[in-house]
Each structure stands twice: as C-alpha cells, then as structure tokens.
C-alpha cells in the first residue's frame, strides 16, 4: 500500500469537497429555481465532464494551465513553479471534472422542494438564512450527501485527467489510482491488488450511501 498516494488521494478528494460543496449548494439552488436565457447551455456545459473522454478534458486543461498559458504563467510568478504537475493543478482539474457530480444531485434535490413550501416559509416570516437552514438544506440534504459522496469517490478514482495534468510525481501528484498503474508496470501485483481492493471498497461504500440517501428523498416525495 502506497500510503503517500492514499494520503494524496484523500487530500485531493477532501480539498475538492471543500470547494465544491458550498459552490454546489449555491449553483444547485440557482439552477433549480431561477430561469434565465441560456440556462440550458449552462447546464449542458456543467454536464460535459460526464460524457467527455478524460483525455479530451486533460488536453484542454493542459492548454489552459500549461507553461504557455496565462494561468500557468501567473501561477509561476506567484508560486515559483509550474501549475501543471503540481497538486494545485490537480485540484483545479479535480474541481472541473467533478462539477456535474457535485451539482446535479444537489440541483435535483432542490428542484424536488415544491415552490409552495418555500413560499410558505417566506409567509411564515422566516429570514433567508433560516429558510436556507431549516427548510431548504433540511429537505435537500440527501441530495447534498449524495453529491458529496459521489464527488469524493469519483476523485479517488480519476485517472486519465490526473495522469495528463499531474504526471505521476510521487508525493505531489501520484494519487492512489496512478500508483496502482505504476505498481502494475513494476510487476508488483500484490501492491496493485491491495490498493485496488481499497479503492473498490471505498467506491462500494460511496454508492451504497448515495443510494440510501436517494431512497430517503424518494420516500419523502411519495408522502407529499
């Protein structure tokens, strides 16, 4: 078991969650309840990472973050090293390829709240924060949990984009998934097997939690 790689994977997943959870709640609410011109395009763009091959995503990320790009040069000036092949570069990539996993379940959960319930909350004199906490999040939490769990698991498992944007720098960008690839090439079947089993267990647990939460939402909806 490559503990460094595991730590890196967990750190990447946690950092991704830290950014995408609040962002997802904000965007999920916005897309659930507001209409604006071009909304369909925005939703399609956010869903792209679901269908794009990781190599396409990786390619465009390299173009956007590489040494010749504006972003890359700005980062170089700031941090004294390249954005690609760094953990920060991985984090940016992770935020992008996880967008639909974070936003879509949350958007669905917010959409499931009947507009009348939110209006009733306003009529009850609840402040915006109290409405958010007591009504909206209280009703949408299964979707938020599902989003969190899926994002976490997906980050742990991402390979193609991580390899292209991060390379396989031990301790910096060699995540667990990359490490497995590395171990196979090194003829270390035992090591690869251990890490694969670990990832499998985590992914299974994630899906199970996500489905349990989904059932909860459906049960609520059926009773309305």
């Amino acid at each position, binding site marked *: 078991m490559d503990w460094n790689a595991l730590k890196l994977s967990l750190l990447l997943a946690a950092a991704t969650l830290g950014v995408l959870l609040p962002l997802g709640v904000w965007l999920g609410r916005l897309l659930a309840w507001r209409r604006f011109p071009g909304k369909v395009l925005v939703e399609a763009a956010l869903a792209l990472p679901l269908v794009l091959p990781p190599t396409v995503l990786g390619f465009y990320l390299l173009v956007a973050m*590489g040494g010749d790009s504006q972003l*890359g040069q700005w980062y*170089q000036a700031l941090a004294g090293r390249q954005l690609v*092949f760094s953990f920060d570069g991985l984090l940016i990539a992770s935020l992008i390829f996880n967008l639909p996993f974070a936003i879509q379940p949350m958007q669905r959960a917010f959409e499931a709240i009947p507009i009348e319930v939110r209006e009733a909350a306003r009529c009850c004199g609840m402040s915006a924060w109290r409405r958010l906490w007591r009504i909206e999040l209280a009703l949408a939490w299964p979707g938020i949990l599902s989003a969190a769990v899926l994002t976490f698991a997906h980050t742990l498992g991402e390979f193609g984009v991580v390899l292209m944007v991060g390379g396989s720098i031990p*301790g910096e960008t060699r995540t667990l998934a990359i490490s497995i690839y590395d171990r196979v090439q090194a*003829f270390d079947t035992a090591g690869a097997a251990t890490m694969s089993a670990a990832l499998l267990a985590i992914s299974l647990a994630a899906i199970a939690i996500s489905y349990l939460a989904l059932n909860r939402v459906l049960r609520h909806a059926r009773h309305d």
Partner: protein
Amino acid sequence: MGMKPVQARGPVVAAAADLQFALPELAAAFQQETGHEVRLAFGSSGNFARQIEQGAPFELFLSADQALVERLARAELTVDDGQLYGEGRLALFVAASSGIAVDSDLSGLAAAVKAGQVRRFAIPNPAHAPYGQRAEELLRAKGLWEALEPRLVLGENAAQAAQFALSGSVDAGISAWSLARAPGLTPEAKVVLLPADDHAPLRQRMVLLKSAGPVARRFHDWLLGSESRAVLARYGFDLPAQP
C-alpha cells in the same frame, strides 16, 4: 549509518522504465549511506522529456536515449550536457505458456511468425520510448517488421511492454534486458539477450535539471560511483569507461 532524512521530501528523479528494478535498489543504497531520500518516477524517456519541457518539477533525469538529454540541453533546461551512465540492451521476452523457441538471432521467432503462432507481439511505443525505437530497428533488420506490425501491442514504456509479454497477454515481446534481471520474475519465463548489432545503441544518459538541489546533485554523483556501477552491471547494463 541509516540516519533519518532531515527534509520532508526528497528530490524527484525521472527515470527510464528499464531502470524499474535497478534504480529502487540504488536509491535504497544511497539512502542507507547518506540518509537522504529520493523520490522515483518511471516512464518512457520521451514522455519525461516532454514533461520536463512543460515544466515538470524533476531534478534529475535518467534517460534511456542520450538524444533526449541533448534536446533538453539545447533548450537550456539542464545544468550541463549530462553523463553517460550505461548502455542498455534489448531482450526477447516469451511467456512460459507460449511455445515459441527463444534464441538470440530470433530464428525461433521468425519460424513462429511464419507458422502463424504469433497473434500479438509487444514492444514499447516507438513514438516516445527509446527501447521501442530500437526494437523496431531490430525487427526491420531481421525482416520481421512487416509481418509483426499489424500484430503489435504498444506498451507505454519498456516496463509495460515487458509486463505484457510476461503476463501472457501477448505471445512475445521485445523490451529492456535490465528488466529481465529483476528478481521475482516468474522463473518459467523465457528471456534471451539480443545482440546489439542490428540497432542503434541505447546510450543512456543522465542529466541534472536547472532546479536540481544539493541532494539531487549528490545522487547524480553517487550514481557514477563504483557501488552504483556494480549494481548497474548486475542488471545487465554495459558500463561506460570510469570518468
């Protein structure tokens, strides 16, 4: 001595995949002696050269082909022109389960090809792996390229190609001889060293990159020392003259 490393993380060394087994042993010995840790990354030399051009944070690069080091030096990404650390050799790998006869002039392979026994053949990707380029040259020289080209499975690097051949996923393959010397390889695998006459030499050159710190430099120098040379020789590398 076995001192614990002082700094949090050692320098990252990019190494050609044929050093997959040799280099960890060397790094361990280095740590044992100096207390310094180095982090190793293996892959195809061409890939690494590209990454270095894009700014990857490697401090030392051990290439399987000196042409790549020269390219980096011309781009002023290196400290100097680098040093030759060994010369690599090709080997034919055949899975134990395969019935192909192994011999160093590839006549057994040629017979198998003629008899249609070779459905899939692995080499490292010639596009960016030096061992792959040499494998292609050798196969062309032996007149086997045309027959084998449609049956090729390209490994990302020398190690992956060898892994394909030894796992039985392909019938046979050509990759780095140094990988065959690895301990723990299944004893029933058949491997034979191939002569260097029919392909350009694999002059393996290493170079310090501009960002190299003191530990990387020390490791670079240590790799040219006698202890390191002995290990490399054990793994089948032909050694250059002692500097």
